[in-house]
C-alpha cells in the first residue's frame, strides 16, 4: 500500500509542478525560467544522487545514453517552456503526455519491445486524441 502511495505522491508533485512552470514562464519568460529551473534541478539531483548512496561509474562506454537523454530532455524543456507562452498549461501538458507515442514506437524499434494489439490500439487512440486536441 505504501508503495502505491509513493507513486501517487510523485504523480501529484509532477502534475502540480507544472502549474509553477506556467506561473514562472508568464512572470519571467521561458528562457529565464528554463535557466533557473535547470540550475536548481541539477543541484537537487546532485544532492539526491551523492547524498543517498554510493556513486559507481562502472560503464564509461554506455555514458552516451544518459548524455543523449539529457540533451534530448534539454531540448524538450526549451520547447515546452516556450510553448507555455502560447498555450494553457493543462492543454500543453496533455499534449506533452503524448510523448509516449514516440517512446513506444522507438522502444519497439531499438529495444525490441513488442508492439502488441493493446499498444497498437493505444497508439491509434493517442493519435486520434492528438488530432482532436489540435483542431
Amino acid at each position: 500500500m505504501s508503495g502505491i502511495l509513493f507513486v501517487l505522491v510523485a504523480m501529484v508533485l509532477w502534475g502540480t509542478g507544472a502549474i509553477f512552470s506556467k506561473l514562472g514562464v508568464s512572470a519571467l519568460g521561458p528562457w529565464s525560467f528554463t535557466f533557473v529551473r535547470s540550475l536548481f534541478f541539477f543541484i537537487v539531483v546532485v544532492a539526491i544522487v551523492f547524498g543517498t548512496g554510493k556513486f559507481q561509474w562502472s560503464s564509461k562506454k554506455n555514458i552516451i545514453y544518459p548524455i543523449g537523454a539529457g540533451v534530448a530532455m534539454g531540448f524538450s524543456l526549451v520547447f515546452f517552456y516556450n510553448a507555455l507562452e502560447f498555450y494553457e498549461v493543462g492543454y500543453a501538458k496533455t499534449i506533452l503526455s503524448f510523448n509516449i507515442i514516440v517512446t513506444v514506437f522507438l522502444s519497439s524499434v531499438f529495444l525490441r519491445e513488442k508492439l502488441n494489439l493493446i499498444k497498437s490500439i493505444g497508439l491509434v487512440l493517442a493519435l486520434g486524441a492528438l488530432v482532436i486536441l489540435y483542431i
Partner: protein
Amino acid sequence: METSFFYLIGAILSSGVAMVLLKMGVLRMGTRETVFFRSLSQTILVFLVVFLLFGTTKFSLPYRIEIIYPILHALMSGIAFITFTKGLKVVEVSIARPIMNLNFMITVVLGVLILGESLNPKMCVGIIMAIIAIILLSSASKSRPRKSLVSPQY
C-alpha cells in the same frame, strides 16, 4: 499548423527520444549514474542554448520574487523523483508507469481551479481518449525486461 504548435511537437519528439535513451542508460549503467549524467548534460545543454541565443548581454538572472516558481518546480520535481523511486522498489512498473504518465490530469484540474483555464467539450474528449491511450500504451508486454524505468518528466 500554427508555428507555436511546433514547440509542442518538438517537446513531444525530444522527450519521447529522451525516455528511450534514459531506459537504455538505466539498463546498462544503473539508475543513479544515469540520472546524474542525464541531469548534467541536460543542464549544460540548456545553459548553452540560453547563452547562445541571448548571449551575456541580453540575458540576466531575474532577481524578483517570481524566481520562486522555477525553484519550487525544480524542488517538486526532485522530491517527486525520490518518492517515485521509493515506490518503484515495491510497486510493479506495469502499475507505476501508467499512474506516473497520467500526472497531466492533475495539471489540467489545477489549471482550471487555480489559473482559471478553460475546459471545453473538445478538450474533455481529447483528455478521456488520452487517458485510455496512455493506460493501454503503458501496459507491460511480456518481452520487456523487468528493470524499472525511472523517468521523471518535468
